[in-house]
């Protein structure tokens, strides 16, 4: 029993760190523009596929071929990460100019629809390029199961955890300790005041979207060896990441991370008990938390001055 719990905890934390990464992306763009990319799930998918194809090309195959375990080395994995970040970053710029900027500040949620539309287009481009079959990405660390405390853990799960936590720590440090981070937080508070202080608000905002898109892409690259890269996996992951952000507190980056891990853990634990109740339990929990604390667990209550 204890072994099962440990097992569940590991995979829950691994999956949770993916939610946390994508949730962070939501946080960054929402803080700076009060919008986010509702098509983030498709970005995750795109990231996964770009990574697979890069690995294939590096191994000398056609970009739609099959990867062998031996061909995926850590070095190549790293290269594909760079490729993913670059391409996804560009995509982030595109989504900002195409789907967000025209609608910022407009009442209503036009940007929700536009980002969903953009996401549909991305998904279909991916479908057209790579087809509907999932593509397998072997883990760079092999698929030998590790035994930790009796529980079987995939090395990829550990890699996911480590990379995600490293990334989140990085972002945390940048946000709190560097001038760039200060600029981002300034823009989040008030873009008018920030621009009066000489901060290039547009550049910051574009950067926010670049980072957010890259985070989604990296999440895709990390999760693909565990789940395979499939054109249809985006929506569910994005919904759960969004839920993590809301539960943890959309305005607080640490809240988003917490939300992600929390959701991953709860999902795994409930799965241990009754597999089919997993998703129901998460979403019921979310509703419950929001009723009690609408701003999220670590979020700040914004009081409207009357």
């Amino acid at each position, binding site marked *: 029993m204890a072994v099962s719990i440990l097992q569940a905890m590991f995979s829950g934390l691994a999956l949770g760190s993916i939610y946390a990464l994508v949730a962070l992306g939501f946080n960054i763009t929402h803080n700076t523009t009060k919008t986010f990319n509702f098509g983030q799930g498709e970005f995750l998918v795109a990231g996964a596929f770009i990574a697979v194809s890069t690995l294939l090309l590096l191994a000398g195959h056609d970009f739609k071929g099959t990867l062998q375990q031996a061909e995926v080395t850590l070095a190549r994995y790293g290269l594909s990460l760079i490729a993913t970040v670059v391409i996804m970053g560009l995509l982030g710029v595109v989504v900002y100019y195409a789907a967000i900027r025209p609608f910022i500040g407009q009442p209503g949620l036009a940007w929700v*629809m536009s980002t969903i539309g953009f996401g549909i287009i991305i998904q279909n481009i991916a479908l057209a390029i790579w087809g509907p079959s999932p593509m397998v990405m072997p883990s760079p660390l092999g698929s030998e199961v590790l035994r930790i405390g009796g529980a079987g853990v995939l090395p990829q799960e550990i890699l996911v955890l480590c990379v995600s936590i490293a990334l989140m720590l990085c972002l945390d440090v940048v946000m709190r300790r560097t001038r760039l981070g200060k600029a981002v937080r300034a823009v989040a508070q008030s873009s008018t005041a920030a621009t009066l202080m000489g901060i290039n608000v547009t550049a910051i905002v574009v950067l926010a979207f670049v980072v957010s898109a890259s985070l989604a892409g990296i999440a895709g690259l990390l999760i693909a060896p565990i789940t395979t890269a499939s054109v249809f996996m985006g929506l569910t992951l994005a*919904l759960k990441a969004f839920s993590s952000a809301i539960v943890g507190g959309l305005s607080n980056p640490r809240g988003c991370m917490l939300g992600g891990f929390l959701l991953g853990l709860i999902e795994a634990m409930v799965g241990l008990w009754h597999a089919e109740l997993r998703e129901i339990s998460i979403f019921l929990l979310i509703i419950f938390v929001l009723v009690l604390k*609408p701003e999220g667990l670590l979020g700040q209550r914004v009081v409207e*001055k009357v």
Partner: protein
Amino acid sequence: MNQYKHLLGVVAFAALVGLIPLVTDNGFYLKVLFLIGVNYLAAAGLNVLVGYAGQKSLGHAGLFAVGAYTAALFTAKLGWNPWLAFAAAGAMAGLFGVVIALPALRVKGPALAMVTIGFGVVVEKVVSEWQDVFAGQQGIYGVLPLTFGGEPLDARQWVWVVLALGIAAHLMLRFLLRGKYGRAFMAVNTAEVAAESVGVSVYKYKVLAFVISAVTCGFAGALITQQNQYINSDFITFNLSVFFLLIVLFGGRSVYGPLLGAVVLTLLDAFLARWPGVQHFTYGALLLFALYAMPNGLSGALTSLFRRLRWYDRRVPGPERAPIAPWRLQVAGDAVPGGEVLLRTQGLYKAYGGVVPTNNLDIEIQSGHVHSLIGPNGAGKTTLLNILSGIVPPSKGTMEFRGRSTVGQPVYRICNMGLGRTFQNLKLFADMSVIDNVKVGLHQHIRTGFWSYLLGLPAAARDEARATAESLQILQFLGLQEHARALAGSLPYGLQRRVELARALATRPTLLLLDEPAAGLNPQETGELVEVIRSIRDLGITILLIEHHMDLVMAISDHVIVLDYGEKIAEGAPLAVQSNPRVIAAYLGTDDEEEAAPMGLGESHV
């Protein structure tokens, strides 16, 4: 005149569409027509929630599911009459509308989207996983279809049934939205606190909007289920919720928006199928394009087009051209004789952590008088007003208005009792017309209820006419009658303040709280304001105003209360307060020995 033109249009439309099933028996076209109708029904209700009340919901597939499965289970498992089951589907969905509304009330923006998404996902999972009851993917078949003369409806009859339902929904919702309910929804959307302060219960109206949208979605679900005689959990997806929302956003907010949206998107969906390759692309591209080109939706774009082609006559020959009678205040209940204590607080105390903006205040407001509340910045004046009007609950102490305690009462209830107010930071319903703003103020005095409005009964029309007449009187009282049809947000600042005043007057208050009514006004406008406040007092309304303009305060007040650091440091006649050393010290400080002169007329103090 307008009403008849509209009715004629509806009849013509019905006839045209009703003719189609007689002209063709292509099952596919009839099916598409049926689908348009179903989508229209769902979107029409959702438009009330999303377009009017401004609550964006991404979980209405859940309500569709409730209606669908109610119809399915009641007929297939319980053997109910299909028409009864159909009605039950709508009722059940309405009930669940309340369920989704309650948590949704407490949150806004992305959190609201999340709650609705959560609801939709939970329903989706329940109907897929709880196989014993809902049969998951296997589905429930043997659902009884609606019947006519004992026979199940054929393709043509389904079109006619859906047409009839659509027309009924359109007429009912149109009546509803043109009257006090539409205004209330829009008020809640634009400025919740303001809506609450003029007597609109935000809670009640949000729930109502959810219920309306739930009922129509439920009926849509039941129609699909009964027409197909089958339902399974694959019908219920997040994409369905998105699709409904899309129809509403694409169509635009107006009453015709859902129709335009439903027609275009359903046709697109049906006819793009013949090009399986580009189906999705076109869909996604269309979304983006629509949002760029038509930020107000298709109906908004068409309206501007018509306006440019001069098909719309914006000059409305209004009743305001006719002479307007002067406004007589009708106070709810007995008029309060002058000199009575209208509002009394004892030991009123409010603390925010270490900050105490209200410290043990004992205040009496006497009827028939103009009271002013002054004090340096940060003295807690606005906080006091907020406590009195119910927006902020006091930590300790008692408040009584006309003998009844107001502590813990919701804001709209306090307004019902006869307390009206304006705001320091203007809170107009900016995208409604001036006269509509005032009519929202009259909201609580329009007695006709929901069903009369829904069914377009004459009582509702009469009340609307009366409200229009009274609103014009109030506007005339404040010299605003020629701006009646203008958009409130388009007026210059000074006039906007007056509109807010008109709105507050429309609540027929016994006591009117004014928060810095002269802020931003030039000396001439301030002088006019003095006259306005006098006329309001002469109508029998008691006034309590917060002000920094000393000339205004001295000119108009019968009684002045001075606050400093949350405490009352002086009160009395204006001249007495003016020379009170404590008051002077509070404003100017005690170290300045020289400048201890009383503040004179004509000096403004920041």
